[in-house]
């Protein structure tokens, strides 16, 4: 691996296999082992795998909290050791191993928090999925635009546009599907503005993104205050898509109800994520897009129209982000609220980076953020004493650590953030 410093938005010094990941893992593993295991709580915790009405009802699994800490802590230490061995052999710790590590650490934390209580696993997982869908879709929009070299800070504005249009158009026409389509088109139009300004007029991409966010926030705030809040019955009462359980799959214990008793927005996300992965990495279209994002001059030389590729990828990314916005309103709670996206577009941006510009990893990262939101709510209920504010900031700290390069390798498409001027 070469040591190349790219001055793009998310650029990083590309280190040849460093031992930062194993060291960090070892630190976490020892912490879990000691804090949740050796000096952990001895109260029992009941893992509640299924809800009452699930088809296949698993009995609760009752175990002492510190036993969970000891077992999982040992497993974490083992993974950290494995990571050391891999680094010795000049191999990077694979992503799935990091993910398993994170998952086990989270379960250990949960078991510690829930000492003396039940741990409603199905509830936590199900809600995490619902919360992760807008983030994941926003992140897919972000990936599509950054893979072709356009930084998309405007995800926030696209989510907000989608959320607003879906609720309002869905209410006015009494047709949620129509609202969904208008939401997607609206966000795509916003994306087009970003595309035109940054590709055609070479305006700084970050500035355009921030400005679009300010603009959408201003407009939706005004329309909400002036119109929706007084005429909510007509214009902001869309209801939500029905929950459709998928026969068979929804009966799978634990993950079935969480993943396959969902709304159409969630299923669309299941469809879009692998499709995007397939197009990006398995088709000529995706290869061209990635070429444009990595080395526009080379792409231009072999006859790819850089400006047109960027324009359409950014625009269609807006469609996807708009769907994510719709998932916030008609895919979850129904009515639109003031500043409904509330910074989720920025979280989606973090998801893009944490997921290393890869659809599947980004979906996993979105789930992590979804978990952290649910955890905060749930932890507040079971043990009000614990500092939930720290649970809130964990994903941000993890993203920060990822960005500054302590966990593995995070490298953005090389040309991200840089305009291409055909010479």
């Amino acid at each position, binding site marked *: 691996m070469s040591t190349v410093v790219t001055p793009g938005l998310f650029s990083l010094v590309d280190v040849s296999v460093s031992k930062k990941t194993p060291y960090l893992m070892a630190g976490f593993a020892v912490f879990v082992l000691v804090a949740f295991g050796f000096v952990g709580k001895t109260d029992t915790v009941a893992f509640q795998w299924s809800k009452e009405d699930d088809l296949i009802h698993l009995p609760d699994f009752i175990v002492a909290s510190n036993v969970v800490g000891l077992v999982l802590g040992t497993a974490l230490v083992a993974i950290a050791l494995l990571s050391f061995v891999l680094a010795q052999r000049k191999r990077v710790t694979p992503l799935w191993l990091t993910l398993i590590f994170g998952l086990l650490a989270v379960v250990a934390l949960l078991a510690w928090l829930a000492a003396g209580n039940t741990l409603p696993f199905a509830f936590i997982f199900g809600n995490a999925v619902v919360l992760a869908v807008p983030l994941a879709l926003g992140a897919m929009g972000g990936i599509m635009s950054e893979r072709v070299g356009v930084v998309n800070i405007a995800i926030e504005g696209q989510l907000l546009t989608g959320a607003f249009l879906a609720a309002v158009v869905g209410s006015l026409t009494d047709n949620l599907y129509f609202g969904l389509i208008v939401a997607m088109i609206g966000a795509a139009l916003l994306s087009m503005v970003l595309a035109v300004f940054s590709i055609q007029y070479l*305006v700084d991409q*970050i*500035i*355009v993104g921030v*400005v679009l966010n300010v603009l959408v926030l201003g407009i939706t*705030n005004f329309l909400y205050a002036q119109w929706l809040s007084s005429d909510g019955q007509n214009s902001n009462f869309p209801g939500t898509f029905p929950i459709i359980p998928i026969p068979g799959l929804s009966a799978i214990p634990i993950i079935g109800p969480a993943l396959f008793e969902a709304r159409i927005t969630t299923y669309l996300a299941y469809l879009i994520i692998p499709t995007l992965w397939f197009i990006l990495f398995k088709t000529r279209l995706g290869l061209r897009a990635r070429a444009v994002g990595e080395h526009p001059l080379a792409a231009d030389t072999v006859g790819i129209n850089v400006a047109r590729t960027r324009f359409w990828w950014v625009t269609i990314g807006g469609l996807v982000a708009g769907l994510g916005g719709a998932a916030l309103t008609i895919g979850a709670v129904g009515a639109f609220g003031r500043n409904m996206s509330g910074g989720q577009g920025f979280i989606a941006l973090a998801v893009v980076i944490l997921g290393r510009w890869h659809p599947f990893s980004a979906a996993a990262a979105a789930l992590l953020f979804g978990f952290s939101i649910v955890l905060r709510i749930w932890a507040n209920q079971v043990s009000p004493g614990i500092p939930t504010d*720290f649970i809130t*900031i964990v994903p941000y700290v993890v993203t920060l650590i990822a960005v500054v*390069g302590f966990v593995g390798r995070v490298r953005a498409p090389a040309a991200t953030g840089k305009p291409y001027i055909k010479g």
Partner: protein
Amino acid sequence: MSDVNATPTAGRGAAVLREIMSGGSTRAILSVVAGFVIGAIFMVFSSEEFLAAAQYFTSRPTDALGAAWTAIAEGYSALFRGSIYNYKADSIVAAIRPMTETLRFAGPLIASGLGIALAFRVGLFNIGASGQLLFGALWATWISTRVSLPWGIHLVVAVLVAILGAAAYGAVVGFLKARTGAHEVIVTIMLNYIAAGILTFFFRTPELLREVDGGGTPKSDAPAVTAQLPLLLGSEFTLHAGFILAIVGVGVYWWLMERSTIGFRFRMVGHNADAARTAGINVERTFVFAMAVSGAFVGLAAANQALGVQAGLTPDLDGSIGFDAITVALLGSSTAPGVLLAGLLFGAFKAGAPQMQVIGLSPEITGVVQGFIVLFIAAPPLVRAIFRLPPPQKTTVIADWWHKLTTKGDAQ
């Protein structure tokens, strides 16, 4: 163009005129005008009378046009009454109070706008004003509620701590960028959330900053009287010394950027980091230092928010200042006078809200105007197309570099 290679001295009159026409200030003014026009359109279409009259527009267009005019006139005169001079007020105090309110709201916007502007001119995009503000306010609140000091010293210490806290938080961004190459936009966004979490934790925990007889909601005590920014115009007005801090900040910023060696170094790195490196400037160290100074200006806003109140603080004490500051810096084209004026304009928008509420117009309309103003600012080609301005003058690379070094409105 034929005069592409002309030296800066040749044809100076025409060049100066063209510079003004296509330069920062004209564009800023035209953007503001365009923003107000679009705001007017929004007002018209949210007016019940206009929508009613528009039903029969073809048979009697004067009704609709009249209603449209009324909507615009009422809206903007309410903004004027709320932010500059209330000519409908009973007393002179009530009449000029709006102006002092504008100054009060403008203070933190100007201060944090200066911070963002400084980062812009070093080529950095500091989205982290909100995090820096919260972090500065956190320690200022610690001083103002948990430490007792004599009158005078208490306030000075609290303000300094706000500045230092925000500067330190900004320096972290610069350090991470210089050390690891992580982009400051992502780092600042993450640090914003982290600062909000830390502040909420402090405000929630009784041993730290939670108010003495507080309940479960995160809230701090009111700052001690000795640490409050004093009122400037007596108890009739709420304007406090936070505005003075902002004005001092404007002066310091101007001197720093236009007259000092450090400012020259900042601008050099901003124009061309590679050239600056070749010239012997430590670019990485400049990034750290610039982010610290940027944070220090935001710290003035932090002092304003933490010490300019008589009541306890809540974790949302930053309001929308973090992002408003970006719009202020953009509209003010990162110059000291520009940021001052832009801060006053957006401060007036905030101050005008109650009066607009009175006439039934949602004060959020100013958010629309603000959004469109910065959209036009960010898209010079768009404004040039609307107002048919001449394209910016093309020069050779060296002339361009020289020109940028010798003029002030250069950052964005």
